[in-house]
């Protein structure tokens, strides 16, 4: 079957098997290997991408279900060569170690901040509670997202999925 979608602002069209998972579509068909795969059962969240501005676990979304949608992955967080404040926050606050959960965590963080620009640490913990990190003990991820909340991108450059879709 054929699917069409917008991935990181680029239109893509591909012929696929109907059973192909979105995570494999992104990784194997489009070569966007920043989105990872970790558990098959929607527990770990290393595969989280944004679909129409909403974080989804791409290991339990068929590529066919993304037909006609707008998808953003970690590769699409950076704008015009400038890191998203979430990326900068993760760097400044040491919010990552092995880096495997990081793309999914940052996509969720971006969606949280789009929805709620000044979340409390408790709200951040709730937002990322569907995702696992085995390295950081979460503390620095919370701090990283707080950093991003206090250093928003200048309004002129704001092009979040929630606004554009």
């Amino acid at each position, binding site marked *: 079957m054929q699917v069409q979608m917008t991935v990181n602002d680029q239109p893509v069209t591909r012929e696929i098997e109907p059973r192909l998972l979105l995570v494999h579509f992104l990784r194997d068909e489009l070569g966007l290997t920043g989105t990872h795969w970790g558990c098959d*059962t929607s527990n770990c969240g*290393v595969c989280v991408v944004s679909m129409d501005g909403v974080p989804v676990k791409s290991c339990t979304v068929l590529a066919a279900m993304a037909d006609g949608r707008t998808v953003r992955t970690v590769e699409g967080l950076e704008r015009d060569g400038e890191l998203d404040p979430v990326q900068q926050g993760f760097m400044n606050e040491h919010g990552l170690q*092995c*880096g495997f959960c*990081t793309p999914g965590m940052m996509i969720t963080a971006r969606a949280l901040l789009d929805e709620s620009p000044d979340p409390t640490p408790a709200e951040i913990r709730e937002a990322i509670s569907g995702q*696992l990190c085995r390295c950081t003990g979460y503390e620095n991820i919370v701090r990283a997202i707080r950093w991003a909340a206090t250093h928003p991108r200048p309004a002129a450059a704001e092009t979040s999925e929630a606004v554009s879709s």
Partner: protein
Amino acid sequence: MTATEAREEATVGFGRRIRKEDARFLRGRGLYIDDVKLPGMLYGAVLRSPHAHARIVSIDTSAAEAHPKVKAVITGALLESLKLAWIPSLSHDVVAVLATDKVRFQGQEVAFVVAEDRYAARDALALIDVDYDVLPAVVDATKALDPDTPVIRDDIDGKTDNHIFDWEAGDAAATDAAFEQADVVVTQDVLYPRVHPAPLETCGAVADMDKVTGKLTIWCNTQAPHAHRTLYAIVAGLPEQKIRVISPDIGGGFGNKVGIYPGYVLAVVGSIVTGKPVKWVEDRAENLMSTSFARDYHMRGEIAATRDGRILGVRVNVLADHGAFNNTAQPTKFPAGFFHVFTGSYDYPAAHCTVKGVYTNKAPGGVAYACSFRVTEAVYLVERIVDCLADELDMDPAELRMKNLLRPEQFPYLSPTGWEYDSGDYPKTLRTAMDLAGYPELRAEQAEKRARGELMGIGVSFFTETVGAGPRKHMDILGLGMADGAEVRIHPTGKAVVRLSVQTQGQGHETTFAQIVSEVTGIPSDDIEVVHGDTDNTPFGLGTYGSRSTPVSGAAVAVAARRVVDKAKIIAGAMLEASPDDLEWNRGTFSIKGDPAVTKTIQEVALAAHGPLELPEGVEGHLDAQCVYDPPNLTYPYGAYIAVVDVDAGTGVVKVRRFIAVDDCGPRINPMIVEGQIHGGLADGIGMALMEVIAFDEDGNCLGGSFMDYQLPTALECPSWELGETVTPSPHHPLGAKGVGESATVGSPAAVVNAVMDALKPFGVRHVDMPLTSAQVWRAMHGRPFRTDLAITD
């Protein structure tokens, strides 16, 4: 001051420094094993046994072979013809690559399919027909040696039981004597159940055999690339120079990625058979059910003391469940690893332990999960029985510890089981933790809450680790001594490259090791490139596990960098027409003593070393050095942890409200990275204490084979960690550094369990086994705790 308070970046040497590796990880540009894609690459999948114990009657692969996208189907019979059906384990046993006679645990490898894509490979697995004759499974380790128990390892000639080894340490007679003098003896059975490191990236490999050059390249997310290369050479009979192991970015290891798994060997065989590169990456169920588990120690601890709380001796008996093959990765002389460091952080004269290893119908393994070679089990046991003793004596557990801790003047301290602890000021560290926690206030709060019927608990643990193995004369794995090499090379323009034997799995080696070279040479960290994870481009060494990167490889780098400075001094002398003895070294710059205006920087010396300058007799050009570091002793990081929990009296749900961790790992190369590693280990402790277990039902079905069943802590289970530090350098390490990667994983479970037991005191509960799920806690409150390693049957 903690890293989070000190925000200034250290451009030269030690200090907080944002990590080099982050730039690619944050952009999705890491290269993990499943990101490796070679031209013409095929995909492998493993057919696994649904049974824990069964004889294989027949395997029919014809339908799978007929699948249009399948390129090869490999069975144990084919491997037998290649003499690869069995490979040596890490502990002088053998491991089946593909089962030939029997399957011995659920999830064991039975056949391997190579196909054009990953979905087709999985499809073809369903087309393989295996006829099994199911046998009774040995699940309960405590019954593995009963006379009527089935023999799992009938592949071993003359084997008539499930016994693996007996081992002991310490002085039995002296310990008996100590117990005879005691006013009080407390005995407690303690289970450290089977858990799994569960890195978020599973294990995998891409094997590429080039039949023209004869070179085999194995991409594999291994923590020990050099050890892997040598073992492949030995096992497969391939010439070692024709094997290249490349370990790319690793999505967490925690010990899970030390050993050689059957899937890696199968990818190699698949590449040889098909002539194409073959990728094999396991799924989560395969990871949890078949790769290296951790712990599974059934322990009995006995502690003897005087009535006023002076510990006199400890006696320990352990039954170690090693699964179907003895594949625990311990140094050869230490079948129970460093478990005999169980005497802990306390001053008493007598101790003795016995450890008995047994086979069961469970996955093999046993080193994994940040355990520092079984120190985790040892620390958990001693910290639990010290708390049991405090309960018996009706003493405050912190006071009992303070009374028995080793004193600073006792270091170096020779323990009753033969370990030489290098340095420490234990009372200072415990006091620091108690001050941070506000210990008396917490006890007062607890008293008030108890009076109201609320369940609050305060748990203390104090741990001493033994990390940084070797020395090589005492420690080897399959004959490979535990020493590591490093090379430091300064380029003509004064920039540098350092090559390491060890491999990062998230610890930030690219940053930390550059900082070590920077600290010694004065070259800015940003000017130093770290090369690792490629056996063709790095010196030999045993790899990253047991917290050994900084203690061993970090020392190798420091020594090599000092040798570079020594050579630079001679060259600077030639440049300045002065004797090297007349030069002074201020990090990065040589000057003539008494004439500080006349200088040569390390960068100027580097250029001169590559130029036409006439060098003194016997001095070669260029500026580089290497070192193979053989540690004179282990290092002994330690710490004091305090957990504060609230238990819901109605449901048994435990909430960790606060966690205070004071670690002493010597000087911190990059405090930001050290604190991050401690955070991660503390989360591990909450996971193991409250959530994680791999149990088995009576048929040997694995009950922890997915993340729906194997529960890991999320941000909601973890509090905001409260850290402190003390700094006691190791006297024998060139940087004084002790290593920290596993400290928090080792020390924290006991603090959490001690806190929950403290909360449950009103119920007369002294000990319940981990994990302290709400079910276990609720049942403990009602006098019905269960064995967490087995299915609940009542």
